[in-house]
């Protein structure tokens, strides 16, 4: 894996490896010294074309806890449309030799354009309505933490599915790991074509009650005000009544169902305050897991896996019995051949 552009192109194995790695990184954030030297001397650029304090901060903390140098670049949309193109920006950054570029962009596919001109590992931190892979990974980590696994779970995703990169990445990830997904929301924002987004199929419901029944996980998406002005629904008030999550909805779900929201929340619109603040809401756990997942992604892309071709386990067995920086050349003083194995 050289880049993380989306969940759609990942295998179940790759996803599980990312989640397993993230789990060990979660412990680092609980230590007094929340830092390991794993990415010392590496540079991570957070290139954000859309305002997002939460995701940017999460990536920044993740990079710093791995000892990488994190640089934040926020580009306002207006200056882009007047000035430098995305590719020119990317070429300029590439000239500074970063190891990883984390990009958030309002245009779907923007991270793909970056891969054409940059050697750095590209991490998609949300591109238009396309994908938001680290969000799906942190959601999965949170679900795994509370449910023990993902296989066989029923997950309902509620809200503006059409414009949601979070919904797409989650649909891919959860179904690859064996969950069944249903979606619901206003007819204008939940096209029936979503039923065939993936091979396994997605259940598309008109009423959110039908999606939530018996589900183990209820994911609520943020409703954006501009959808009202674009005439996707008449008013936030009506949205809250018909598509907002209330306690009586939650009673339809499994008794131990959990509630998630990618934030930032509109309390009283897509989610009622008593649910947001209630014991079944894992919204803050999601934030904590966000750092761990992003550490895992940065570590595997900007550090460990960087030059890597897949290493066979046979090589590892030999290497393991030896010391860390075993020199492989025959004669002392010869150029050291890099060690290829992994110490576990």
């Amino acid at each position, binding site marked *: 894996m050289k880049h993380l552009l989306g969940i*759609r192109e990942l295998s179940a194995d790759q996803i599980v490896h990312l989640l397993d790695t993230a789990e060990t990184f979660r412990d680092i954030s609980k230590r007094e010294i929340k830092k390991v030297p794993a990415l010392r001397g590496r540079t991570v650029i957070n290139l954000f074309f859309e305002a997002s304090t939460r995701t940017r901060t999460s990536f920044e903390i993740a990079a710093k806890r791995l000892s990488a140098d994190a640089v934040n670049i926020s580009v306002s949309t207006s200056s882009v449309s007047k000035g430098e193109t*995305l590719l020119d920006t990317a070429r300029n950054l590439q000239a500074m030799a970063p190891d990883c570029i984390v990009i958030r962009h309002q*245009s779907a596919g923007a991270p793909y354009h970056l891969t054409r001109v940059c050697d750095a590992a590209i991490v998609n931190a949300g591109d*238009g309505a396309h994908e938001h892979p680290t969000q799906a990974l942190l959601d999965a980590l949170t679900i795994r933490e509370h449910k023990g696994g993902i296989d066989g779970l029923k997950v309902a995703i509620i809200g503006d599915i059409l414009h949601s990169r979070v919904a797409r990445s989650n649909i891919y990830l959860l179904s690859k790991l064996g969950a069944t997904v249903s979606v619901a929301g206003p007819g204008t924002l939940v096209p029936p074509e979503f039923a065939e987004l993936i091979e396994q199929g997605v259940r598309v419901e008109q009423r959110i009650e039908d999606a939530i029944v018996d589900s183990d996980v209820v994911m609520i998406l943020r409703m954006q005000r501009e959808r009202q002005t674009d005439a996707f629904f008449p008013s936030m008030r009506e949205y809250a009544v018909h598509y907002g999550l209330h306690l009586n909805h939650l009673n339809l779900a499994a008794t131990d169902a959990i509630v998630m929201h990618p934030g930032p929340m509109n309390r009283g619109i897509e989610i009622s305050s008593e649910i947001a603040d209630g014991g079944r809401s894992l919204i803050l756990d999601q934030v904590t897991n966000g750092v761990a997942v992003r550490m895992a992604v940065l570590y595997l892309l900007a550090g460990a896996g960087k030059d890597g071709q897949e290493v066979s386990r046979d090589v590892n067995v030999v290497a393991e019995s030896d010391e860390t920086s075993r020199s492989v050349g025959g004669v002392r003083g010869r150029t050291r051949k890099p060690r290829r194995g992994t110490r576990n």
Partner: protein
Amino acid sequence: MRLLIQNGYIIDPAQGLNTGKNLLVEDGRIVGVLGYSDPIPEATELFDATGLIVAPGFIDMHVHLREPGHEYKETIASGAAAAVAGGFTTVCAMPNTSPVNDNAAVTRFVIEQAERAGLASVLPIGAVTKNSEGIELAEMGEMKDAGIVAVSDDGCPVPTAGMMRRAMEYARGFDLPVIDHCEDKSLARGGVMHEGHWSLVLGLRGMPAAAEEVDAERDCVLAELTGARVHLAHLSTRGAIEAVRRARQKGLHVSCEVAPHHWSLTDEACQGYDTNTKMNPPLRSQDYIDAILEGLRDGTIDAIASDHAPHHADEKALEFDQAPNGIVGLETSIGLAMERLVNTGVISLERLVELCATNPARILKLQDRGTLSAGARADVTILDPEMTWTFDVSRSKSKSRNSPFNGYSFRGGVVATIVRGRIVHLLPEYSRSVRGTRIELAAR
């Protein structure tokens, strides 16, 4: 100056010709069709067309040549060079230049530039409304006098049915066809690709097929109301093609064209966000390709037009939703038609000539084109149905490189293009076919 195209196979649906004959051309006009063994007049240049198809010069009735105003994308000269390299002896230039071709001065400029370039004949299409804004009618009469062959607001389709009705009624008075790019903008809603599975996967805003179908239906209804000649451009949807089929059955003067990329690629090609797969109408799913093939087979579709739309590499290097619509198409049109339509048995070679020459001339009422009958302009396209070739966009005659077909291989292609009796394009591999006097090739 005389040219005899010998031993070829002549296909001219206008005369019902589909036979091995020689074609004699003199002073820019067709003299006539001769038997292989008929005596050859003296001082005649010879083109040995053994094994080749000799057809009336192909007409691409829908191209964007960008001049005046956007000469960095294409000029009339470079566009005309690309046209003859692609086998087209006549192209019709859409009016969305800067300034828009909505008055006789711009029309005359386009014609003069084309005459200066030689090569392909360029026939301008005038705007329907001033500045293509859909508010006031453009001066169609003046433009017709200056040389336009049709009117269209192409990329900025006439927004209201009321305005379109006036346009049709007025154009009818000058016997000008109204060409419409069918797109209901309120339905397309700024979509950047076909609305369907792939727009959901890619997270790109989709424009539904209905946006084209609604407008096509509207235009057919108005064609009935006004009795005008209506031509629907680059149709890409099943519903629009069916609308034309029904209108035709009613005897209305409705015709339509399709573009090669719409039968060659599906919206799956947008995966990877290559902006050379972005055009309007967009690439659609397989079901729509099937509808286009049906329409080509059963005769509903009258013409093949490339919608040649050059854009500079820097413009196409933008994010997918920011990049401009369109691809260059003049030099791949015939290759894609041979490869995907003729070789696969969807249409015959004769039907190909009909789609590329006979029908465009009929729709635009170009009396002396689209046929090899005696007295017609000596515009000839010579094809080799067996040659294999690969499209290399870096060697295109167009100024732009925005093609999704770079590296595609084809069986069957254009060998030579003859405009008014002059050989303006000849593949080097076939240069030995020509004997006699000097060959005038288009300089690059």
